[in-house]
């Protein structure tokens, strides 16, 4: 598989790797994918009082493009409102990273991870969400 320089850059220098305190009320955690499918993404967002995502962290089990997709979205969600974060589409991720067609599912997974993290945050704050339940991208 030949990857774009952007994928290689995110793979070799992944941004925002790590974990936030999942029990913290200001943190939303989304975990999507399945080990049997070869990729699992965990995305966490920390939302400030103004409703802005001020921090994001990820951990990913998966191929190079899955790692790059999740690394990229941690950069993209930062500074955005929840609704702005939800507006990030997999096509934009795939385009930014120039993912080959067989790797488009990695960008879909990254989009799902954002939705799951936002849903988890909103559940904690009892906001009626978008219909996405954490850890279950298939519910929508």
């Amino acid at each position, binding site marked *: *598989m030949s*990857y774009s320089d952007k994928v290689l850059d995110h*793979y070799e220098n*992944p941004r925002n*790797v790590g*974990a936030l305190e999942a029990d913290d009320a200001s943190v939303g955690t989304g*975990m*999507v*994918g*399945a*080990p*049997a*499918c*070869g*990729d*699992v*993404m*965990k995305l966490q967002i920390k939302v400030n009082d103004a409703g802005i995502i001020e921090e994001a962290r990820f*951990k*990913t*089990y*998966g*191929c*190079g493009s*899955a*790692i790059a997709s999740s690394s990229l979205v941690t950069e993209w969600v930062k500074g955005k409102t929840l609704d702005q974060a939800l507006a990030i589409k997999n096509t934009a991720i795939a385009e930014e990273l120039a993912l080959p067609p*067989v790797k488009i*599912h990695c960008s*879909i*997974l990254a989009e*799902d991870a954002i939705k799951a993290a936002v849903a988890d945050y909103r559940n904690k704050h009892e906001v009626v969400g978008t219909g996405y339940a954490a*850890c*279950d*991208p*298939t519910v929508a």
Partner: protein
Amino acid sequence: MPKLPIYLDYSATTPIDPRVAEKMIPYLTEKFGNPASRSHAFGWDADQAVEQAREEVAGLVNCDPKEIVWTSGATESDNLAIKGAAQFYKGKGKHLITVRTEHKAVLDPMRELERQGFEVTYLDPEPNGLLDLDKFTAAIRPDTILASVMHVNNEIGVIQDIETIGEICRGKGVLFHVDAAQSTGKAPIDLARLKVDLMSFSAHKTYGPKGIGALYVRRKPRIRIEAQMHGGGHERGMRSGTLATHQIVGMGAAFRIAAEEMATENERIRYLRDKLWAGVSTLDEVHLNGDMQRRVPHNLNASFNFVEGESLMMAIKDLAVSSGSACTSASLEPSYVLKALGRNDELAHSSIRFSIGRFTTEQEIDYAVQLLHKHVGKLRDLSPLWDMHRAGVDLNSVQWAAH
């Protein structure tokens, strides 16, 4: 520091041994004759070279040179053996037996025969990759005409007991085909003793050129096959097409070297493989795939749990290896061989095959071990599954959303 990248994918293909290449070159230029030309010295010279190579190939596997049929490679040999024998003997029955861990060059001809109205039993191997011979015997029916079991598996390197399987087949009147693409020069083959009727060979897995192989077709008792390629009636009608003299010369030279050197070479390779395994098995959660004892010394297949194979290969890009990860295949399915062993999908996705060969050095193995130690840890630091494992979460108890 060894020269990079380091080639550890000898089961995919091998370089041509320089001694082999040297033998081939004259047959590309001045000795260019068609071995089928009976009327002049150009043809005679080429024919003599082809027949000498036939003896060299027969020499490695201890058969009569007349039992060797040249083909374009092991895939063609498998097709010719399986489809050719099934079509010739279909009056006796239309049932065949094979194993789920066979190479696609065996499984796909079987699928084709199913389309033609044959019935095929696909046996599951045991978790160590080896065939349970009682299960094999039980699968034989009165209408079984052929069984095909590979000698050495391409992914996990395990050696099937073709000696006993051959006895069982002969006792039941079932033809026995063996795909030996991965075993020449690695495991001894004695066709005078083995009850094997058809055996497929490849040159390029044994330091010969690509594009040439052979099929052994037993003469006593005589095995008949229907040709799959029709033309000038070359190779006693079994495989038409002008013989590729230079390729054949290369295969002969490569198999002669294998016969002469395999005993000493395999000891050196076994030392390197054992050193590689000793080095990587000190990492946590590394699982060997396939039996360690009944295995060629060249192969190590291990799963680095909680690390996905393709991303590991990216990390260790200085090593040319292969993976059973779905991400390395177009189908997005992990290795069917590892799944047939009962390995779960995670371990199949996390597998790396290292295959060691004639030109691998100890320095390269040391470098590989060092690289793996560095990068497996780095990728696990990125892995949510590793965190969960360390927190004591049983990943099988988690309800994952399939996608």
